[in-house]
């Protein structure tokens, strides 16, 4: 019997038992839909984490001083005074894979503008820092070289700070504010950046020239709390990190086998850390969803076994008029396959639809990837063949004489 006829016969027999076919497919429909939806949710959360981390900047490398030990007692990481301004200049001069670099001096405190006040953190940075972290200024200007040299009392403020200090009719640029009683002029307003990777408000920040914060607010000279560096390209992140490590080790006379008094973190490492957790989640979700797919497959097997028993006489008759075992096997296998593929198709539609619904209603970050649809669909196919085989084989092995007289 040719394939087209087989196909028609299988389709017709499914059509004769519409409700039963639909209920049988339900398992596969739910399985495929949940695989697609779960993968979409997992993929979506991974993408959003990646997005947020990439909000850190482009090709970012961070260097921190390490912790110091005083009589075996560790102080907080970053508290060691092991990074100095000379190190910074040496990195700039000797590491070809480094594009931008900027020291960071952290401070914070009370900010007063007129009758309003707000508490925020202040970062002292070079102008380059804005390039490293892709920070854009919405209005006003960035720092000039003179600002850095003179330790000018100027600052660029984030949206949250501006909202809390000024009413909506006041242009913050040009306004005078006081940070820890030191008067500053606002020279720029940052573009809104939203939430960071850890849920922190990236707009609740004030940037000032590094020298201003370092000298006027921290009272420090040489020691640097943190260095932000960007590599020339994504591929060069590793290389740049190695160059910096080598340079700093040479400058501080530390062999390759010792723990250095500084840490280098690259953006890639941070991304990997986060994506590995969300990968675990994806595997977990997909695993649970696949179990429902397998349960759906067992449902198909169950119904096909019932169908074979019910249609024993039909099988006997088909054999009596010339169907070979192979023809019967194909007929029932195709029926199982049609059930699972049709279920897969409906399930895929449901999966995509429900993912879109999640986006619309819950506002979850969801990404339906084409590979998840292909995966779920081919899984449904395999389930169909696997669970359809046994009933089909049982039908094909029937002895025509006995099948014809089956009551």
């Amino acid at each position, binding site marked *: *019997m040719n394939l087209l006829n087989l196909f028609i*016969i299988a389709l017709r027999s499914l059509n004769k038992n519409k409700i039963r076919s639909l209920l049988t497919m339900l398992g596969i429909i739910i399985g495929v839909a949940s695989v697609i939806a779960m993968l979409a949710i997992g993929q979506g959360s991974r993408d959003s984490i990646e997005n947020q981390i990439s909000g850190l900047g482009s090709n970012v490398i961070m260097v921190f001083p390490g912790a110091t030990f005083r009589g075996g007692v560790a102080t907080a990481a970053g508290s060691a005074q092991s990074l100095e301004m000379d190190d910074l200049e040496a990195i700039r001069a000797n590491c070809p894979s480094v594009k931008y670099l900027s020291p960071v001096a952290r401070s914070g405190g009370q900010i007063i503008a007129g009758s309003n006040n707000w508490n925020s953190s202040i970062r002292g940075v070079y102008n380059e820092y804005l390039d490293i972290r892709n920070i854009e200024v919405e209005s006003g200007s960035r720092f000039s070289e003179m600002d850095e040299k003179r330790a000018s009392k100027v600052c660029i403020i984030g949206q949250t700070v501006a909202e809390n200090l000024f009413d909506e009719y006041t242009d913050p640029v040009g306004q005078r504010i006081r940070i820890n009683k030191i008067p500053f002029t606002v020279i720029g307003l940052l573009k809104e950046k939203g939430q960071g990777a850890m849920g922190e408000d990236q707009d609740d920040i004030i940037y000032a020239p590094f020298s201003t914060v370092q000298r006027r607010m921290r009272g420090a000279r040489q020691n640097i709390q943190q260095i932000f560096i960007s590599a020339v390209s994504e591929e060069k992140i590793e290389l740049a990190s190695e160059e910096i490590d080598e340079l700093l080790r040479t400058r501080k006379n530390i062999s390759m086998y010792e723990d250095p008094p500084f840490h280098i973190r690259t953006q890639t490492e941070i991304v990997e850390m986060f994506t590995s957790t969300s990968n675990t989640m994806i595997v977990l979700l997909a695993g649970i969803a696949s179990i429902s797919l397998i349960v759906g497959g067992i449902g198909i097997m169950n119904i096909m076994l019932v169908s074979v028993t019910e249609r024993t006489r039909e099988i006997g*008759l088909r054999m*009596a*008029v*010339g169907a070979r075992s192979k023809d019967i096997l194909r007929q029932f296998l195709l029926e199982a396959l049609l059930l699972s593929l049709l279920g897969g198709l409906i399930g895929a539609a449901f999966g995509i639809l429900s993912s879109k619904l999640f986006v619309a209603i819950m506002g979850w970050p969801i990404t339906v990837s084409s590979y998840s649809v292909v995966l779920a669909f081919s899984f449904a196919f395999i389930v169909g063949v696997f669970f359809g085989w046994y009933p089909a084989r049982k039908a094909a092995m029937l002895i025509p004489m006995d099948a*014809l007289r089956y009551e």
Partner: protein
Amino acid sequence: MKEQDQERKKIISVKNLSKIYDMGAVKVHALRGIEMDIHEGEFTAIMGHSGSGKSTLLNILGCLDVPTEGKYYLDDADVSHLDKNQLARMRNRKIGFVFQTYNLLPRTSALENVELPLLYNPEIRRKERKERAMNTLELVGLTDWSEHFPNQLSGGQQQRVAIARALVNDPVIMLADEPTGNLDTRTSFGVMEIFQELNRKGITIALVTHEMDISKFATRNILFRDGRISKEIIIKNIKNAGEELKKLPPEDEEME
């Protein structure tokens, strides 16, 4: 008659045929050394009580089963030792079956039921299949019923669909297993009338029955007892099913 037989082609030739069912502890001898020929154009009724071996013989003749011993030639080909697939092919090309319980596919039109054997013959295209199915339905007088499902047909009509299905592949012999077993006398005669008509047109028929009055419509009766042929009768005074049907009391009276 004898002389005529020798001229006629042997459709079925059975030599020393035995069938033993191995039931573990006991061996059941269903057939013990059967010798039998069926010639082209014959209408043979195989008679016997249940357990006499007549159904076993019909299964072997219909290529549904193989003999334990002996030879079976169907249309000059030895089919005693064919494998499953070859037997399926023989059934598809050479045999037409009619069953006691019709065995029509439910929720499938009469026409499609008749088409079924041709579906398993890859040499026959769709158009030819439809044509042949329609022609055979005409032969049994069911042209107007071709699109009806079996549950919309009477028992007699269903059996006629089954007969059409047995004929559609142009078989060398039509085998019927108690074809009137589920029908009342009137309908039985009606079905036998069709068999006789077909036989007159040259179709070879072998029929298993235990009803004496049904066997009288055949040209030849073979009696089975305990796996052996106990008697063979050539019917001289063949009854005409159509005329017998007219002799029956009118349907209205029978209804009362």
